[in-house]
């Protein structure tokens, strides 16, 4: 059977993007940004703090890292929870040893359950961002607007001061940017289209997207792709060196990467983690900061 006639109709086939959240702008057609601090590049570290329920829903898909074996999958539940109990404290210790601040993307469920952890992160001067309700609450186009607005509101209630948003599994519906902006979030870590903060149009005003590079995700490199700790560390340091080195042509750029407490927080990875953090902290021309500080620095530069 042939495809229906509309399969050969291309309503968005024109110059630029096929969606109107932001405009097309290739890297070589725009003025370079110079940061007031003089930094040539900025990096931000995203640390997801996630609750993985023992009985996760399968729709619209199972969150990466969700339970694998039949209920009750105590094995995966407890290996994930290890991150929130033990691993995250190793990350905090190494961040502090290197003098760096990170952005902790926190599920509402974690904020409600693990108050001592949230207090500890705040006391360390790190940014607390919102990461949806839990890994069982994925934003997707199959939700009604009311259902999705309720998820955002529940997250907002648990994390009233957060300005940065990251969706569970970084999955969105067509309306997610509008709903999170409407709830007062001004920064989003889901879209990684650019190498500098990207202003996005929403029905409630501008939302700034920061590039949190999936290709640098510790889950992807260390777990899915099974690469070594040293290979992982080398790639993060290489990304930093490259963005700094491009400064003469491209101006200031930024990038982000994730440290997942149940992955990078394992004892045998701490040596590589320390090499990454001290390497970034010492890198000439690079400034490592939280998502909110990165967004503000680029916003200030472009005024």
């Amino acid at each position, binding site marked *: 059977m042939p495809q229906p006639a509309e399969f050969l109709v291309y309503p968005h086939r024109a110059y630029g993007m096929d969606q109107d959240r932001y405009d097309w702008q290739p890297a070589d057609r725009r003025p370079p940004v110079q940061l007031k601090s003089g930094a040539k590049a900025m990096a931000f570290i995203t640390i997801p703090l996630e609750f993985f329920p023992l009985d996760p829903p399968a729709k619209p898909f199972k969150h990466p890292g969700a339970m694998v074996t039949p209920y009750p999958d*105590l094995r995966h539940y*407890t290996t994930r929870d290890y991150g929130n109990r*033990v691993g995250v404290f190793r990350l905090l210790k190494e961040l502090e040893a290197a003098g760096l601040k990170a952005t902790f993307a926190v599920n509402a469920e974690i904020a409600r359950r693990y108050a*001592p952890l949230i207090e500890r992160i705040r006391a360390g001067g790190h940014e607390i961002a919102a990461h949806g309700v839990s890994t069982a609450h994925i934003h997707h186009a199959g939700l009604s607007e009311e259902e999705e607005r309720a998820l955002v509101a529940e997250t907002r209630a648990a994390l009233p001061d957060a300005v940065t948003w990251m969706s569970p599994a970084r999955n969105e519906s067509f309306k997610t940017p509008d709903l999170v902006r409407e709830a007062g979030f001004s920064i989003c870590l889901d879209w990684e289209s650019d190498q500098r903060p990207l202003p996005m149009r929403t029905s409630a005003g501008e939302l700034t997207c920061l590039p949190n590079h999936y290709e640098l995700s510790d889950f992807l490199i260390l777990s899915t792709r099974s690469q070594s700790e040293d290979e992982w560390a080398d790639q993060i340091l290489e990304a930093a060196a490259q963005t700094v080195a491009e400064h003469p042509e491209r101006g200031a750029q930024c990038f982000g990467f994730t440290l997942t407490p149940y992955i990078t927080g*394992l004892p*045998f990875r701490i040596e590589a983690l320390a090499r990454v953090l001290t390497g970034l902290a010492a890198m000439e021309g690079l400034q490592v900061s939280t998502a909110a500080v990165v967004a503000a620095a680029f916003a200030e530069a472009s005024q």
Partner: protein
Amino acid sequence: MTHSDPNLYDYWPYEGRPKIRWPGNKKLAFWIAPNIEYYEFDPPVNPSRSPWPRPNPDIAGYSQRDWGNRIGHWRLMDLMDKYGMRGSISLSIGLIDHHPEIIEACIARNWEFFSHGIYNTRYSYGMDEAQERAVLEDSIRSVEQATGQRIRGYLAPALTHTENTLDLIAEHDFWYSCDLFQDDQPQPLKTKTGKLVSMPYSLEVNDVITYSVQGWSPQRYTDLLKRHFDQLLKEGEESGTVMCIPLHAYLVSQPHRIRIFEEALKHIAAHSDDIWITTGAEIADHFRTHYWDESVKDIAARGVATGGTGFAPAR
């Protein structure tokens, strides 16, 4: 009805815990858990999960595990003798009947036995309380008959559980469970009765995970064991940690791996001034006797104690 949280333990931040010291003022308790398993040639099918990746009989999988018992186990035993390390055997209880020679060799070395179910091809899914009790009682009785030893630890067969598993092993006076992976220190579990310790056993440095799941090389496995050990020893200065290496002879004892694995044991043995080389039951006993009450108190003070017991939340 399912639960989103098993409620088997309370939230307890790793930072700032009371200081644990192991006997002899040691900082790290080190134990090795060789899994001595029997996988049936033609097991009954559990509706929740197939016993083998391929349809029965899965010759490749079956014979590789048999090689582990015929060849690999003896190679690993020689290596552990060389470094004076006793094993805590995660035992498929059925193996006592199939291969008594292995049991005798372990008794001769004063190794510890704990239960890993009857066969690793009999999953706990769907068992009622009486059936799970029968497995535990069979485990206790069979090991006692064969060795005179009362088992104190449990690792559910193939890591399969019911909501009752932890309560039932506590009720049967087991001292420790290897089934939970939330921490690098022992800690109290919230069972209806008993004093059941959650014992660090570790999947992350388990040879099944590193070789069969992650696909890492022998050199990389040794490298991560050394790094894992160095980090836990460093943290043990603050409060005693536990490191376990769970092993499967059908993997680690392969001729292309065993010599490279030995480098890790050599590295660990070189720190014998700081570490307690011991068994799971001895660690559990020490923790129950000296640190149980203090831990419960610290969890209430600095953690989030929610009450209730496993799968029975307070409220």
